[in-house]
C-alpha cells in the first residue's frame, strides 16, 4: 500500500497540471473543445485525490491533518472540490484555470515535503482537533477562492475602465458575478473561520500546556477574521461595495498566507506552541 501512496503522491500534481491545461486551452482559444471533458477530468482528479487521502488515513492510522504538508494536500483537494461544486451550480466555466493553479501550488509543495508519519502525538488524535482543522480547511479554501475571484474582479474592472477588450474581457463572467462569487465565498470563509476560532480558543489551552495568545497563527487568523467581518458587514449594510470589499478580501487572504508561512517555516510547526 505504501508504494501506491508514494506513486499517487507523485502523480497528483501531474493530474492537476493536466486538468489546468484542459481548462487553460479552452480559456485561451475561447472554444468549447473540452467543455465536458475538462469537467470530467477535474472530477476524476478529485476522485483520485480523495482515494489518496483515504489510503493515507488507513495506512498511517490518522487523517492527514497533523502537520502543514498533510494539510496542504487536503487544502489542494478542498479548493478544487469547492470549485467543482461552484462550477456545477453556477455553470461558469471560464474561471477554472485561476482556481486550479492554486491547487497545483499546494499539492506540489505537499508532494515534495510530505512525510510518512505513523507515530502521531496523542493530543493530535482528539476529535475536537478534527473539527478545528476541518472548519479551518473549509474556511481557508473559501477565502482562497474569494481572493481569486476578487483578483479577477480587479483585473476585469481595470480592463473595462481602460477600454482593454482582450481575453479577460471576452472570457470572464460579468463584474457583478465575480463580485458575488468573491463575496459569497468570503461569507462561507468567515462562518467557518468563526467556528475554527471558537473551537480553537476552547480546546487549544486545554490540550497544549505551552499555548500562547501571541501565537502568530492565532493573531493572523484573528486579523483575517476581523477583516472579513468588516468587509461583509459594510457590504451588507450598503456602505461599501465592489472594489473596496474585494480589496479587503484579497488583503485578508494575503495575511492568512503570510501568517501560515511565518509560523510554519520559522517555527516549523502549525502553531508556535507545538
Amino acid at each position: 500500500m505504501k508504494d501506491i501512496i508514494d506513486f499517487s503522491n507523485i502523480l497528483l500534481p501531474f493530474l492537476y497540471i493536466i486538468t489546468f491545461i484542459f481548462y487553460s486551452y479552452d480559456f485561451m482559444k475561447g472554444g468549447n473543445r473540452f467543455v465536458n471533458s475538462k469537467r470530467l477530468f477535474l472530477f476524476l482528479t478529485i476522485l483520485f485525490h480523495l482515494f489518496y487521502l483515504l489510503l493515507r488515513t488507513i495506512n498511517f492510522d490518522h487523517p492527514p491533518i497533523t502537520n502543514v504538508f498533510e494539510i496542504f494536500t487536503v487544502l489542494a483537494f478542498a479548493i478544487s472540490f469547492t470549485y467543482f461544486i461552484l462550477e456545477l451550480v453556477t455553470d461558469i466555466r471560464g474561471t477554472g484555470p485561476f482556481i486550479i493553479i492554486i491547487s497545483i501550488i499546494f499539492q506540489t509543495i505537499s508532494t515534495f515535503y510530505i512525510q510518512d508519519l505513523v507515530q502521531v502525538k496523542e493530543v493530535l488524535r482528539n476529535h475536537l482537533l478534527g473539527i478545528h482543522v476541518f472548519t479551518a480547511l473549509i474556511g481557508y479554501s473559501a477565502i482562497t477562492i474569494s481572493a481569486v475571484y476578487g483578483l479577477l474582479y480587479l483585473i476585469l474592472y481595470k480592463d473595462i475602465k481602460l477600454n482593454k477588450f482582450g481575453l479577460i474581457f471576452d472570457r470572464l463572467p460579468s463584474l457583478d458575478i465575480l463580485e458575488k462569487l468573491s463575496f459569497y465565498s468570503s461569507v462561507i470563509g468567515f462562518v467557518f473561520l468563526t467556528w475554527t476560532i471558537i473551537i480553537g480558543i476552547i480546546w487549544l489551552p486545554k490540550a497544549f500546556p505551552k499555548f500562547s495568545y501571541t501565537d502568530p497563527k492565532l493573531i493572523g487568523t484573528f486579523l483575517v477574521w476581523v477583516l472579513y467581518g468588516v468587509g461583509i458587514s459594510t457590504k451588507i449594510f450598503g456602505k461599501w461595495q465592489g472594489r473596496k470589499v474585494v480589496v479587503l478580501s484579497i488583503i485578508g487572504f494575503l495575511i492568512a498566507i503570510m501568517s501560515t508561512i511565518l509560523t510554519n517555516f520559522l517555527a516549523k510547526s502549525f502553531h508556535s506552541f507545538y
Partner: protein
Amino acid sequence: MNLLAVSINHRTAPVELREVLHLSEDEIRDFIRRIKGTILNEGVVISTCNRTEVYGLPNNSNLTHKDLQNSLLNLKPVKELKPEHFQNYFSDEAIKHLFSVATGIDSLLIGDNQIFKQVKDSFEIAEESKFVGFLMKRIFDSTVKAGKRAITETQISEGAVTVSYAAVQLIEKIYSNLSKKAALVIGAGETGEIAAKHLKERGIGRLAITNRTIERAEKLAESLNAKIIPFNHFKDFLHEYDIVLSATSAENLILTKEDIKASMKKRNYNPCVFMDIAIPRDIDPEVKNIDYVFYNDIDSLNIIVQQNLVKRKEEIPKVESIINEEASSFLSWYNSLEAAPTIKNLRDFFESIRSEEVDKNKNRFSADDQEKLEIVTKRIINKILHHPTVELKKYTESNINSGDAAMRISIIKELFGIDKKNIKEE
C-alpha cells in the same frame, strides 16, 4: 441541374440602385404571379435592403439569366442599371450562393443572422404563392440546414457588430442581470431608439427616455413601455439610473464631470455605466476617472465592433466548408434522381436506333440470319453502353463529386440529345 439565379447586392450595385430594385412582400407576390409558368416553373425571390435575388428553374431550356433580369426590370424599371450590376449563377454555383446568403457570409455585416430569417420568410412567401415545387422544397430544407449549422457549429454570428449592440454587450459585462437595473436613454433619435430597443430586448428592469422634443420621446416611450422624463429636469433623476445612454445631436456637452460626480455621490458610489454614442460627444470624457463610473464613447465601442468583425471573418472558412458539405449532399441527392432516368433514356435511345436500322435492313438477310442480326446488334449496343452505364450508376453513390457528376450527366444528355420531356414522362 438547371437552377438559374440572378443577384443584385451590396457588392455589385450602389445603395441607390438597390433601393429601387427592393421588393416589398406584396411586390414579391406580384412578381411571382408574373413569372410563374412563363419564365420559371418554381423558385424563390429574396429582397432585403442589401440584395434582391431571384432563384428558379426555367420554364424552358432556352431561357437565360438575361430573361430573368429583364422580368425583374419590367416590374421595376431602372435606367441606370447595367449588366455588371447583376451577378449570375447556374446550377451548383447558385446553390452555394444561396447557402452563402443564408449563412450570412455574403452579408455586408458578416454573420448577420437577420438574413437567415429573411431567407426563410422568402421561401414561405414562395410556398404560399405555390411557387415551390419538389426541387425547391428540397433546396429550402438544405438551405435551412446549412444556416442552422453555421449558427451552431461556428461563431460566425457571435459578438456585437454594431455600436449600439456593442454598448449593450459591454453593459452585460458589468451587470449580470439587467432585469434588476434601470436605464435612461437621452435622445430619442434613430441611434437612441435602436439602443433603447436593444436594452428592452435584453430585459432591462426599468427604462426611461428623455428628449428635447417631448413628442418624440412620448412616441418611443409608448412603443417600449418606458417612462418619460422632461429634458430640463433629467439631471435631477440621474442617480436613479444604473445605465445612462446618450445619443443626442447636441453640439455641446450635456453631462459634465460635476453632474456625474454629484449623481455618484447620491448613489453612494454604486457602479454606473455611461454610454456616449453621440457625435459630437454628449458626456465629458473626463468622467471615466471617477470611481465606479464606466464610461465609453463611440471610439471605444468601435474597438469591440472591429474585434468582433475580425473574429467573424476568421470563421468564414468553417462556414464555407459547411456550405460545401451541404451543397455536395444536396447535389448527390439530385444526381441520384437524374442518373437512373438518364441510364434508361440512354439505353432506350440506342435501342430505338438499333431496332429502326434492323427493321429497315432485315429483309436483306435470310430468315436464319435475321435472328442472328438481332442478337449481334443487341450485343454491340450492350457492349457500347456497358461502360457509360457503369459510370452513370456511380453517380448515384454519395461519395462521388456531385458537381462533376451533374456536369457529366448533363453532357451525356446533351451529346445524345436525350429529351427532358422523356424523363418527365418516365
